[in-house]
């Protein structure tokens, strides 16, 4: 029973870190219909920027991590302005391939500049794990999950309560009407992509404190994040979070009780199963995207 409880808790913590990645991805994918393979690269860059600010320049975490996210968002603006804007009206395959180009380009630039040797960002504090009964939780993991939850809540409030968030929702519901209402849709596209990049970078920044930072870390995460997003229901934030938790917990259970080798297949097997039953995902509306 204790092992089971520990497994579930580990799963929830892993799921919490998937959630941040998945929310950013579902945002860009659901709103802009962009299969963004560069999402994982922004996640990787977020980790590297954190390394730069926290280790190289030796800023405290509380300043370094937001700075890393900010730089990633600026980079997102640049990518949108110079690469994606010319192809927004093109076929979805063309847009996707452009992000594939970035997926090839960015990790190799990093490899050339910094070599592929894994780097480590030290956590802001060292504390012995909390022990509740027989269950152990590392404080840093708990902190990461809490920050992820905080960012997701902040993002949700931004979308629902601010003028810009409202303008974004309007733009992706009906672009023409939004334009007629005086919304600068070009700017909205830029901001949306930039925020998606920021979410990815936030995930990378958080996880850089417990995992190694290396150029290929983005590519490994991207496919699984896509599975989580479709599993939960495309463009649905609650679905993305639920999907992330389900995948995290199932992986943890599979790793403990079945085989650690097949652990990484869990997300994909779940995806295939759910697609057979409900092709729009767990929380997805039929043929629709929540906007």
């Amino acid at each position: 029973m204790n092992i089971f409880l520990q497994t579930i808790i580990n799963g929830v913590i892993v799921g919490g870190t998937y959630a941040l990645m998945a929310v950013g991805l579902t945002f860009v994918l659901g709103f802009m219909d962009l299969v963004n393979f560069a999402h994982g690269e922004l996640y990787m860059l977020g980790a590297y920027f954190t390394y730069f600010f926290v280790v190289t320049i030796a800023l405290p975490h509380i300043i370094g991590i937001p700075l890393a996210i900010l730089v990633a968002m600026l980079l997102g603006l640049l990518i949108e302005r110079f690469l994606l804007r010319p192809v927004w009206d093109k076929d979805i395959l063309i847009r996707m391939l452009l992000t594939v180009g970035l997926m090839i380009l960015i990790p190799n630039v990093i490899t050339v500049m910094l070599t592929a040797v894994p780097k480590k960002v030290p956590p802001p504090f060292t504390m012995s794990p909390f022990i509740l009964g027989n269950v152990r939780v590392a404080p840093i993991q708990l902190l990461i999950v809490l920050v992820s939850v905080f960012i997701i809540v902040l993002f949700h409030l931004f979308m629902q309560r601010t003028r810009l968030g409202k303008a974004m929702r309007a733009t992706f519901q009906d672009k023409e009407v939004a334009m007629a209402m005086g919304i600068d849709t070009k700017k909205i596209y830029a901001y949306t992509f930039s925020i998606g990049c920021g979410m990815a970078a936030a995930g990378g920044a958080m996880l850089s404190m417990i995992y190694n930072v290396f150029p290929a870390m983005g590519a490994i995460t991207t496919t699984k994040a896509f599975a989580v997003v479709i599993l939960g229901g495309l463009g649905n934030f609650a679905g993305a979070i639920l999907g992330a938790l389900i995948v995290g917990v199932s992986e943890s259970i599979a790793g403990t009780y079945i085989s650690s080798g097949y652990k990484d297949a869990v997300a994909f097997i779940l995806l295939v199963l759910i697609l057979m039953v409900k092709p729009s995902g767990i929380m997805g509306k039929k043929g629709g995207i929540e906007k």
Partner: protein
Amino acid sequence: MRKKWTWIVPLTLLILMLPLLIESSYFMHITILAMIYIILATSLNLLSGYTGLLSLGHHAFYGIGAYTAALSVMRLGLPFLLALLLSGILPMILSYLVGKITFRLRSSFFAISTIAFAEITRLVSINWVELTEGPMGLPNIPAASIGPLVLNSYNKQYYLVLILAVSSIFLSYRIVNSHIGRVFKGIKDAEYVAISTGVNIDRYLMIAIMAGAFMAGIAGGFYGQYMKFISPDVFYFQMTVNMVVMVIAGGLGTIGGPVVGAIIFTLAPEVLRFSEGYSFILYGIALILIILFLPGGLWSLLKKVKNLFKNSVYPNNSEIEGSDNLK
């Protein structure tokens, strides 16, 4: 018509004589790899180029083909040609199951769920050690032998892969230029219209994915005996990325596009190798530039160049070109 044939004859001669012209075994190797990629890009183009459903799990069929051929020769002792046939048939059967589940989805949903299938096959290839030897891979795969003929040189391998590549281009050409091809176009341009005229869409998509899986599997079967070694690396997502790049940068939904794309994007990393770590950076930049400035792919560029020559002979052609823009 006669004009069309004038360049085909020297081209055919060139392709047939290629092993005599290339002395370096390294370049022969690159040429054979390019041929394998021609088969793969053509097979992906059948589904993704013509019907517009992008599969990102296509490398699974290639990998399964590679393992099927290698295992049936090494463990079951089947003759090579039979093993090669099996390496096409098994992925084809699997593609039927994949299609059954994923054809209810479109665009990004479809693309991502096909990744899921491919990732599952990759993890099986790593973890089912009794069958696949896991990450260690299968070494010492015997070279193909057809009757008494053992394909133990680059030149012999070249002619085999040439036959396979030409057959797959021909097969794909025949499918696309039949009534099936017209249905593909209908599905891509206006699916609802196609459905409302009573077309069983799934059946036609099934033809596209199964024919594509068959070709990709055969390419895998050839690859295994050519390299004499396979490992779960054949299931890497990068394989599909390569194929997609070749198809789209070459020219989506054309017969010649994937061929041109496969040749150029197999050669490019090799030509750029002098730049060491920068080769993939240049590859990525080249890809982005092609998408931004040449969305029709390299094939459209070739056509433009061809039209340039035509216009100098038949000046009126430019008028016909212009009328196209009015649409």
